[in-house]
């Protein structure tokens, strides 16, 4: 199988970190991966995007025009990227910040998750990225939740390993919410 996902939001939301995390989880599973960050003249609060491919075959293009999945974390990304998701694909939208309901398309699976609110409930707004990637792994099956959690020690510097348990909790919370939300929609 071949999974490609595009993630977009503000710089500071931790998008590049979960892109790395997903790629490392793929490596743990012995799969082929590519992680490609948008590279441009950027600043704090500016746009942050990356594309990750996890595949059982050789990874071809690290650049994807119409991704099979998109994780959209802010309104600007919704405007720019929602229409690009491949028919039959998946789009996870951060409903805490994005008002657009995403009902303009019936050819993809749209899952709205109040990610910022959930992160605040967990006690740290910075956990929003982990909730997001947990939800994506759950809905797509691109990698297992265990691999994601196992990859935390690979992508976080040692000094931050003490935060792994709360990140694990956030991944689980995102997965659980996504499971329930997808069940409601079905």
């Amino acid at each position, binding site marked *: 199988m071949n999974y490609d996902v595009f993630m977009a939001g503000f710089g500071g939301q931790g998008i590049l970190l979960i892109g790395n995390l997903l790629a490392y989880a793929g490596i743990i599973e012995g799969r082929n991966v590519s*992680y490609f960050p948008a*590279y*441009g*003249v950027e600043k704090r609060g500016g746009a942050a995007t990356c594309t990750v491919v996890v595949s059982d075959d050789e990874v*071809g*293009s690290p*650049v994807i*025009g119409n991704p099979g999945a998109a994780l959209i974390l802010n309104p600007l990304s919704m405007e720019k990227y929602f229409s690009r998701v491949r028919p039959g694909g998946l789009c996870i939208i951060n409903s805490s910040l994005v008002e657009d309901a995403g009902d303009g398309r019936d050819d993809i699976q749209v899952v709205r998750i109040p990610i910022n609110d959930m992160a605040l409930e967990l006690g740290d707004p910075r956990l929003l990225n982990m909730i997001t990637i947990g939800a994506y792994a759950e809905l797509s099956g691109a990698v297992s939740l265990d691999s994601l959690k196992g990859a935390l020690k690979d992508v976080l510097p040692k000094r931050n390993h003490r935060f792994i348990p709360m990140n694990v909790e956030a991944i689980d919370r995102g997965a659980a919410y996504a499971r329930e939300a997808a069940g409601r929609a079905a």
Partner: protein
Amino acid sequence: MQKRLLVKGNEAVAMGAIEAGCRYYFGYPITPQSDIPEYISREFPNVGGVFIQAESEIASINMLLGASACGARAMTSSSSPGISLKQEGISYMAGSELPGLIVNICRSGPGLGGIDASQADYFQAVKGGGHGGYHIIVLAPDSVQEMYDLTMLAFDLSDRYRVPAMLLGDSVIGQMKEALTPHPYISPGDLPAKDWAVSGKDGRPQRVVKSLFLGDGELEEHNWKLHRKYQELKDKEVRYEASDLDDAQLVVTAFGSTARIAKTAIRMAREEGLKVGLLRPISLFPFPEKAFLETTSKVKRVLCVELNTGQMVEDVRLSVARDADVFFYGRPPGAGSLPTPEELLAQIRKHYKD
């Protein structure tokens, strides 16, 4: 089995260089290649290497010339405008028959241009970017693993032929991360001894490393000698990747990051039943001329894709069979101007004929 690591392309160059025994690095920071000096400056103290952030690109290329003249395995890295500044030194190295690795993680131009991925330095790299009529060995990796492997190969080829070598990449291949399986460097047993290096005379006959030849007929003979080496490179050291050519009606050619995008486009085309193959030059100099000639004795349609307005396509046209049609699709660099696989698939459909 070696552990697979998630590694950035630029870091893979640095890792490959250290593994290949390079212990001298001279450079000046510039986006998008600064991960290379960053990594090397962090790791060199552990292996006894010498890292110098020089006062300029010009200083650093001349430091490379000096280290190489003393027989050391050495390198520099930069990005397009910085590589332009180094051209005088590269010409002197070519004239002095000095090995050495120059990494160009290209940005877009001309002039200051921008920092987006570009393949617009192809001409400069393969045609001899400085004065005086020379070539350097140019290798174009298309994956993080190749960034590692070809760095090692570049050092070996450069030492074997005493011709400077360049690794040519861009910000896609430099900044992306993929699984890398690091492996130990194995030095080819038959690399010639550096019996020309100015290593301290100590009783032996004098050695001179120079690019100035004023004697009657001396310079002409020197130029023919260099020419013969370039011919030998063309005979022995061409590298390329070919796939799906057996039944192909159209062959797509691209190098580096663009080849990766093309691979996905080819897969999509095959799913539609279009018989499309790939010919990817890995060595840009020496260019795989024979591979293009042989391929186009059967496949008569070639689509060349580049992140510029048409450079490698000139070498493709010079190499193919006379009755082959060569088409070109270019995306000159700029923010957001990377082609997508879907875009290249449209080009494949446009030029495909059963």
